[in-house]
């Protein structure tokens, strides 16, 4: 029992020594890698600086946009502010927005169709009722032929 405990203690000690050695090696390696990272060519440094300035430019333009939105909101132009909010929402949910637009277009198309058909029926009914001839005359084939010959 006692020997087991001693063995466990030794293993623990060994592991902690290993961890320390690992850390030491890792830090030595990292020091060398770090020194290498400071020796980049001018071409690479220029390219990195460009990338950095592009990123900063993006942040600055975002800030300006945000400030603009807040100003609009403060001035009471809430409609534009809401427009911006909804615009952002639709931009985030592009598929949903596309489906919504397609649905609205289809609904509009069917509504217009329905309305125009009803309108035509109403017109033809009014014509038949206001006509001098009885409505049956228009369904009679002989009457049409007689009209053509005369």
């Amino acid at each position, binding site marked *: 029992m006692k020997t087991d405990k001693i063995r466990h203690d030794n293993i623990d000690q060994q592991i902690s020594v290993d961890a320390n050695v*690992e850390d030491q090696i890792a830090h030595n390696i*990292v020091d060398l890698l770090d020194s290498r990272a400071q*020796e*980049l060519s001018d071409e690479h440094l220029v390219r*990195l600086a460009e*990338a*950095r300035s592009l990123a900063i430019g993006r942040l600055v333009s975002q800030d300006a946009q945000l400030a603009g939105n807040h100003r609009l909101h403060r001035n009471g132009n809430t409609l534009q502010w809401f427009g911006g909010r909804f615009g952002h929402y639709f931009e985030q949910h592009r598929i949903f927005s596309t489906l919504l637009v397609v649905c609205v277009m289809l609904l509009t198309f069917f509504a217009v169709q329905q309305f125009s058909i009803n309108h035509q029926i109403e017109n033809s009914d009014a014509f038949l009722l206001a006509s001098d001839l009885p409505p049956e005359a228009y369904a009679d084939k002989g009457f049409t032929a007689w009209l053509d010959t005369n």
Partner: protein
Amino acid sequence: MATPKELSDFLAAIERRAFKQTAYAVRDDHAALDIVQDAMMKLADKYGAQPASEFPMLFQRILQNTMRDYWRRQKVRNLWTTLLSSFGGSADDNEDRDPLDTIDVGDDSEEPSVQIARSQTIALIERALEKLPTRQREAFVLRYWEEMDVAETAEIMGCSDGSVKTHCSRAVHALALELRKQGLDKLGLSNAILNGPR
């Protein structure tokens, strides 16, 4: 919310390391520069409103994800290239290209013996680092080079703390062994770790 100056300072502080880390991972300087630029833009775009103290974690996560995207795209491109080249006959330009050849070992130093020895040592380390499996390299870089703790590294890598420790330990062992093979015993290598129980 971080100011543009805070973001600029942060990016200036990490850009060189980020570039080297990416270059070790993708083994292509131009691709590495593109990836770092992408990561910078994404950080500014999506997380510019976050406090500056969160930038290191966020940037590392973005960088790792951008690298993964790059590998995914490369995989698809390679697949198409293979398919098309199988139709197109011989591929003369598809020689065995050793990615290790792309490492810039040269150094325009003025003190030949010391500088050359140091440069060669770093080149060996870089090669050894490139040879590491991706996860081990990721863990090593984040944990030791970026000086993140185990929990932060685990969060970025999307794995458990235990996995990070294992990856780090294996990475250091592999690096130590590789360097030992090259006769570099001056980096604190010891028999305890090289011939240890793990």
